[in-house]
């Protein structure tokens, strides 16, 4: 074999070895464990912390509100849907790390008249329905189909 050819083959062989080494160094251990990706990424992504805690946890401390809520039409709505994620609040219950919703904005977010809402969904024309009153002036906060005692016989709108 001519020496220039053998030298070329040695150089080529060296490059192949280097490629294999670089690949071996650069490729994470769990690559191709399940497919063309890092297998460890699955458990890493699955182990991220949860911010919206299970619903039943809220009722452990806030019994009255949970009871009110359970008796009304909002029973299927998660507390955290209005109050925001509760993971911090469970670790350290203060008023700062949970959302206390602004009453007027929270109710109309769902119940203001909007043509795109399903016709069967209860909607109100806010000005016509409430005037200058707040929703919770008449409605019980966590069970809005109940009305506050003093307002039961009063005229609804101003």
């Amino acid at each position, binding site marked *: 074999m*001519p*020496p*220039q050819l053998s030298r070329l083959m040695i*150089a080529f062989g*060296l*490059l192949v*070895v*280097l490629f294999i*080494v*670089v690949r*071996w*160094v650069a490729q*994470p*251990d*769990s*690559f191709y*464990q*399940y*497919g*063309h*990706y*890092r*297998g*460890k*990424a*699955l*458990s*890493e*992504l*699955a*182990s*991220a*912390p*949860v*911010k*919206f805690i*299970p*619903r039943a946890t809220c009722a452990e401390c806030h019994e009255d509100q949970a009871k009110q809520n359970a008796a009304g039409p*909002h029973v*299927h*709505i*998660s507390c*955290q*849907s209005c109050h*925001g*994620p509760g993971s911090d609040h469970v670790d350290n219950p203060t008023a700062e790390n949970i959302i206390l919703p602004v009453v007027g904005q929270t109710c109309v*977010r*769902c119940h*203001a*008249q*909007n*043509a*795109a*809402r*399903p016709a069967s*969904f209860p909607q109100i024309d806010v000005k016509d329905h409430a005037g200058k009153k707040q929703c919770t002036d008449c409605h019980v906060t966590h069970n809005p189909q109940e009305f506050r005692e003093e307002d039961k016989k009063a005229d609804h709108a101003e």
Partner: protein
Amino acid sequence: MPNNDHQDLILPEGCDTCAAKTGSGKTRRDFLKLLGQATVVLTAARFGASAAGATETPPAEAHVAEQWDLHKWGMAVDVEKCIGCGRCVVACKAENSVPKEPTYFRTWVERYREYEDDVVVDSPNGGYDGFPADDGGRTPDRAFFVPKLCNHCDKAPCVQVCPVGATFKTPDGAVLVDASYCIGCRYCIQACPYGARYLNPVTQTADKCTLCYHRIHKGLKPACVENCPTGARIFGDLKDPNDPLRKYLHDHKVFVLKQQLNTYPKVFYYGIDKEVR
């Protein structure tokens, strides 16, 4: 004679144009030596890293191969129940630390208003702040909200184009992004026909809905499903014949978005019109 031929092939020293020399004045021999040294160093580094890893990581924390193919996750969206309150958008951003600014959404809500002669589609801030009632004095013939998210396609274009294997389909059907492996080339963002991806401005990696992978593997529902007040989103396991999602898909005439693209989405819509894209 062959030796003489060989002698003829040796080029004179100091030749500027000869192939044996590189532009920097280094010989091929030097380059080959460098390759050899690099091989040795890399091998040593690898052995060093694995030795250090073995001592630092206790075996209990080492990656344990779990069974990831027990489920096949999917979602149904009942458009006739959606009230466009945007609680799903708010919940998603809170749960997954999605940037608060507009244009970054893992899920968002669109409003379709069909008039006699045209269709108006809007999504102010993705529905994060709800929808204004204003119809400009016109009453639409039909109007409805369509929550959107990653469709977790069975044949996902984003997975196909990723050059490094950072986007992948898990054995249980979710399409995820390995942020530690993503190089931020944005190719997947262009490839997604549903516009479900964005480049996270903090990490500079591609980001998208994970079906709340960290929640569903703890037995919880995704944050958007958990916080939907009307139950417009139904999440479940397509492999389980007794799952409510399977029953829902059986009982309702559902559609997928952009069916003609053959991406085989695992997010199913009930009650949408042909205008929905």
